[in-house]
């Protein structure tokens, strides 16, 4: 008999195709898996591209000193008399002595928001005359101030007024002059008009001295945005069912949390806002299942003893023995808890240099719908049941959330990165279960918002 007869027999007997294989179910499962893989890939591509874009923007964004319109502008002054004349007539003239009483009609330089007022510093006394009201026509014809082209014959006050009218379009007569704005006598026969780099949040967008007005300042209160966060999760289980909880702990480990959704923000004050939205949150647990299989193989010729004879020779004794085998293998599966949630957050937005703002928001997040997938140990013992039929509530969860974000504020939009923390406040398990479960997470993410109106 050929020595490969056994191999050949097995090859002949074992079918090349599994005719009873359920291709419909397998195709459906494969499609679901490929869909998940595509979504996951799309998410990571999006996250990576966003981070790269943000990083490039931070690295290559021109510094404030390089932007046109915020350089120093020198305005020559014709006279050097130490008298400052006042006028009681309403005027659009920009230069106002700080000693003028508060009931004096306000000027165009009085910025409504009180932000980014240009500082005018003069080290020598000068006669500053107010001019007749500057009309729109005169504004249009006004020469552009420049260190090299400014004529010494040109009245300084008028020039400043023309420029000032560009960056203070929302002046109201009832407000007082900002303290940071002042004109003092000149020493070198010239005004040195400077402007600090503003924390130019779109909500308080201003225009630099000498810069042409580009857009209407954005004073939007409503903002709509999107955010996506990824974080590490932890789960806390407690209750009377000690053995059940121990078994759950031994086979399930909290893995991560993905949260993505829409944010709707309303500024109740320039720096304070309320925020709500709609989040999709997915919590994933890794579940390690241990498969153990016992089987016995009877070996009819097993070495069961050794006989040492009187002459010193050794004889092996063989006989039938039942050999028990334990085959153990493990497999990882994933349990997923998906929630639709509505947050109610209150927050503060603080300038943190340049166009960057630090924002902090906190508040409760209410789960309005839940779905689950995977399998879980049933309360009755060793039987595993689908998680969807498991001891979990389908809505009504409440978590506490805090979001810290560092955003770049453009004109009508803002984008940035953030850190988010969540603490489970209510029990995820159904009310009739003898255990409680709460989940917590810490993560990072990306945010983008756009002004609505």
């Amino acid at each position: 008999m050929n020595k490969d007869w056994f191999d050949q027999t097995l090859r002949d007997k074992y079918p090349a195709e599994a005719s009873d294989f359920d291709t419909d179910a397998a195709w459906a499962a494969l499609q679901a898996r490929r869909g998940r893989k595509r979504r996951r890939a799309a998410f990571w591509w999006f996250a990576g591209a966003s981070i790269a874009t943000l990083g490039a923007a931070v690295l290559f964004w021109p510094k404030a000193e390089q932007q046109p319109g915020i350089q120093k502008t020198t305005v020559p002054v014709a006279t050097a008399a130490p008298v400052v004349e006042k006028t009681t007539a309403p005027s659009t003239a920009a230069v106002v002595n700080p000693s003028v009483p508060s009931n004096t009609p306000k000027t165009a330089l009085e910025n409504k928001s009180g932000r980014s007022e240009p500082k005018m510093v003069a080290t020598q006394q000068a006669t500053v005359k107010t001019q007749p009201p500057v009309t729109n026509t005169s504004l249009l014809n006004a020469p552009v101030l420049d260190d090299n082209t400014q004529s010494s014959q040109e009245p300084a006050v008028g020039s400043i007024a023309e420029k000032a009218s560009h960056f203070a379009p929302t002046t109201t007569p009832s407000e007082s002059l900002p303290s940071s704005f002042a004109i003092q006598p000149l020493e070198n026969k010239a005004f040195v008009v400077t402007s600090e780099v503003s924390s130019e949040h779109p909500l308080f967008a201003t225009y630099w001295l000498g810069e042409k007005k580009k857009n209407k300042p954005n004073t939007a209160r409503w903002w709509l945005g999107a955010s996506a966060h990824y974080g590490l999760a932890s789960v806390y289980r407690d209750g009377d069912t000690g053995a059940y909880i121990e078994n759950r702990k031994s086979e399930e480990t909290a893995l991560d949390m993905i949260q993505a959704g829409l944010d709707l923000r309303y500024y109740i004050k320039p720096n304070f806002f309320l925020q709500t939205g709609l989040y999709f949150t997915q919590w994933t647990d890794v579940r390690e299942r241990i498969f153990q299989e016992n089987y016995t193989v009877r070996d009819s010729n097993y070495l069961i003893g050794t006989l040492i004879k009187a002459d010193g020779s050794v004889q092996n004794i063989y006989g039938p023995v039942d050999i028990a085998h334990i085959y153990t293998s493990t497999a990882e599966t994933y349990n997923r808890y998906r929630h639709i949630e509505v947050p109610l957050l209150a927050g503060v937005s603080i300038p943190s240099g340049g166009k960057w703002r630090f924002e902090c928001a906190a508040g409760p997040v209410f789960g309005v719908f839940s779905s689950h997938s995977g399998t879980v140990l049933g309360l009755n013992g060793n039987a595993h049941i689908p998680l969807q039929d498991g001891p979990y509530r389908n809505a009504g969860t409440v978590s506490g959330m805090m979001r810290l974000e560092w955003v770049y504020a453009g004109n009508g939009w803002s984008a940035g990165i953030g850190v988010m923390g969540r603490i489970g406040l209510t029990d995820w398990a159904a009310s009739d279960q003898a255990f409680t479960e709460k989940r917590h997470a810490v993560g990072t993410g990306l945010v983008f918002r756009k002004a609505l109106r």
Partner: protein
Amino acid sequence: MHEVHLLHIIEGCRQGKARADEARFRRVAPRVAAIARRYATDEPQAHDYVQECFVTVFEKINRYDPQRGQFEPWLHRLCVNVILQILRKNKSAQTTVELPLELPDGDFWEPETETLDPEQILEAIRLLPNGYREVFNLSVFEEWPHRDIAAALGISESSSRSQLARAKNWLKQKLTQATRHYEQGLV
């Protein structure tokens, strides 16, 4: 299915057509399942292997070159490699059981091969411990030389040979018992 039709489906897969993917899957899934079942310890694991194989097949379909050979052998080789990769990944979590060193000599195989059922073969193969089952499959069904088996599984060639010999003996014993039970009406 004619090879020309098969190439048409493969071309569709390359272009990302969902219907072509499905046609390809339905065409070759039973063949892949037959391979996966030999390496899996149970049916759910075999389904997992089939899924992993097809995820890889759809990813790497562009690498298949019809000029270099037929599709079926390429698919077979790819699936075996995917399954071995999974087994290597899970190796640390598995407990390997050694088959007894001493097995009785002699031919356990009785000539009643007509009564041998494919299910019995599969059951017996699945009862083989890890390592032994892989060596046995690679050697008997895939017909890999011991050098390749040793390289793929990270073992020595002598280990591959000895594991194959033990696995064969053990299987002969099991299958002999099974056929005898069958003849005696116990199964």
